[in-house]
């Protein structure tokens, strides 16, 4: 008898659902010892970390607020990742989206009208796309790696936002602090529910994820993106252009990131500030892969990440869990999730050594 690992030809639905549960279980066990070691009451801390964020209606609304931008950006990024186009600068495209939207909001600050928000969304998407166009152009024209350009441009974007909010876009009544005016009601996303921060952008995000799902599974474009990524030679043979795919990937991922930036500025933040996001553009990369580049998987992964963030805050408040420990716990959760993925793709079984069947 020996332990054999072999790829599953077909992944059963039960395994797909069971592996994350196993991962969470392993995280709970490890977390128990981590919190015990830190001198906390482990069961209580785990409860606050993993359960509390989902206990209340308000908690769920906050999960939506947190998961929304992650899901929106990851959905866009997944398109490129399937085609091996490595946009890791969604954070910068998000920032440019916020700048575009914020620019509109400030330009029409003394006006009101239902046209302002759509215009902001347009400007936000355009901002993200234009910023995504730089790495796309440099890649298709000069073969400059998009990994480098998109990452480096993120820092430039943050500094650029700084120039604006420390300079010309500063709130004239704001004691020269680095922030713009608060947006007027016409420039703020309507709330889905009063008393929460859940804005209509979250509904748009869900719609975008579903649209992406349809696009990837039904449309030719989805097939093209997939083929270019997996078999460039075959793609050329079929007449799919690599450059077109690069452009398409950056336009989609830049656009969604820009829209996410718009939603942050016009949603929970309500103005432009120097640090508009806590790194959504980078976290979304994890979300995209955790969701296996599948729009529905991405929604699930986005909410799981949101729970780990919001739960970490609750555990800090309720149990005085050090902030650093929330990162360790979150890292462990991700490790287990990624490791358990193995079980859904490979079968481990004890077999007598003479049997050598199956795809190998």
């Amino acid at each position, binding site marked *: 008898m020996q332990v054999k690992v072999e790829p599953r030809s077909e992944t059963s639905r039960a395994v797909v659902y069971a592996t994350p549960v196993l991962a969470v279980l392993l995280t709970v066990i490890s977390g128990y010892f981590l919190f015990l070691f830190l001198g906390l009451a482990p069961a209580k801390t785990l409860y606050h970390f993993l359960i509390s964020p989902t*206990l*209340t209606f*308000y908690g769920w609304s906050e999960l939506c607020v947190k998961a929304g931008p992650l899901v929106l950006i990851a959905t866009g990024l997944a398109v490129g990742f399937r085609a091996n186009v490595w946009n890791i600068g969604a954070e910068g495209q998000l920032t440019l989206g916020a700048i575009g939207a914020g620019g509109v909001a400030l330009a029409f600050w003394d006006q009101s009208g239902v046209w302002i928000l759509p215009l902001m969304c347009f400007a936000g998407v355009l901002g993200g796309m234009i910023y995504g166009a730089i790495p796309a152009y440099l890649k298709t024209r000069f073969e400059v790696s998009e990994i480098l350009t998109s990452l480096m441009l993120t820092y430039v974007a943050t500094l650029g936002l700084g120039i604006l909010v420390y300079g010309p876009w500063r709130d004239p009544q704001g004691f020269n602090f680095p922030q713009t005016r608060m947006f007027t009601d016409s420039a703020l996303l309507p709330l889905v529910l009063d008393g929460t921060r859940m804005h209509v952008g979250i509904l748009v995000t869900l719609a975008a994820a579903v649209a992406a799902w349809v696009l990837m599974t039904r449309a030719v474009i989805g097939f093209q993106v997939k083929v270019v990524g997996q078999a460039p030679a075959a793609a050329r043979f079929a007449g799919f252009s690599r450059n077109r795919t690069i452009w398409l990937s950056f336009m989609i991922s830049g656009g969604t990131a820009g829209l996410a930036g718009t939603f942050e500025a016009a949603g929970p933040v309500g103005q432009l*500030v120097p*640090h508009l996001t*806590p790194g959504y553009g980078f976290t979304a990369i994890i979300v995209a892969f955790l969701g296996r580049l599948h729009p529905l998987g991405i929604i699930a992964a986005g909410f799981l990440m949101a729970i780990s963030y919001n739960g970490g*805050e609750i555990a800090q*408040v309720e149990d*005085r869990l050090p902030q650093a420990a929330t990162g360790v716990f979150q890292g462990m959760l991700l490790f287990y999730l990624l490791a358990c993925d193995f079980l859904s793709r490979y079968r481990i079984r004890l077999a007598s050594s003479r049997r050598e069947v199956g795809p190998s």
Partner: protein
Amino acid sequence: MTITVTRRTFLAGSAAAAGTMALGRAGTALAADPLPVAFVYTGPIGDHGYTFAHDVGRRAVEAHFGDKVKVTFVENVPEGPDCERVIRQLATSGNQLIFSTSFGFMEATLKVASQFPKLKFEHATGFKRANNLAIYNARFYEGRAVLGDIAGRMSKAGVAGYVASFPIPEVVMGINAFTLAAQKHNPNFKTKVIWANTWYDPGKESDAAKALIDKGADIISQHTDSAAPLQVAESRGVYAFGQATDMTSYAPKAHLTAVVDQWANYYIDRVQKVIDGAWTSTDIWWGFKEGLVGLAPYNAAMPADVKAAADKLKADITSGAVHPFTGPIKNQKGEVVYAAGQKASDEEMLKMNWYVAGVES
């Protein structure tokens, strides 16, 4: 003990949240219960700078009140969409008094305060106040004026280097107060400023300090949070000033003194007011006089006359005899902004976005 209460209010809050605002534990606390107090920090408590100084105040509250208070803090809270949730969480969790210690938390604190009218909030360094939201700030520029006085006397080159973070009024005010005080002793004194564009990146801060020394500065001041510029000063044999806390241990030879943020007395006072039921929404800007700003012990390398002069300036500022922003003050273009004897108003200082003559930025 608190866990059940907390969870109940959490659930109650959720029911209420569907329609109106949650009230937290307001009003339900018995007199004998410890008063729950919370602090929200933007940095890590281990930054040994701004957040560390607030945390010293937090620990002083714990030490002073013992089991009469239950103190919670959340560190590394990013300014942006997350801080509102954290502050709200502290409110639903039953904290009666919440200190939010960074300017970037202002709008979020204001919003949560309006949703929890029975709880008390305090926001540091901002300008928006409400019935249950007090604001507090420290006149750090008073301390920086004393540093400038020392720099003017200790610098042979007459050139100071200033490692700055971002051009917000607080930083601009500090650079100006420092330069004006130095020029009292040496009218040709110059302050060269390098912007690190970060509050906290030890490597970049040290690079900036090195560049300033290479540009001719022989004394270094900083408005960033790490002790890296001091270490550079120590190794290059020039003097420097610490930031927010006594940083002597990082640079025993170079560290002359530091403006020390002393929030403890204020925090203790405010907690006591809540316990006594005497808390009101106030707007304070305290300095040397009230003990919110202090100086770290002088380095033995400072000559006695420099120490004496620094002590005298501190005493004069404390008594009100000297105001660091008293004319004549010229801006970089040489235009007179304040005529002889004219003093800058508090509002003018809080909005300051121009540099005095002698600042090279």
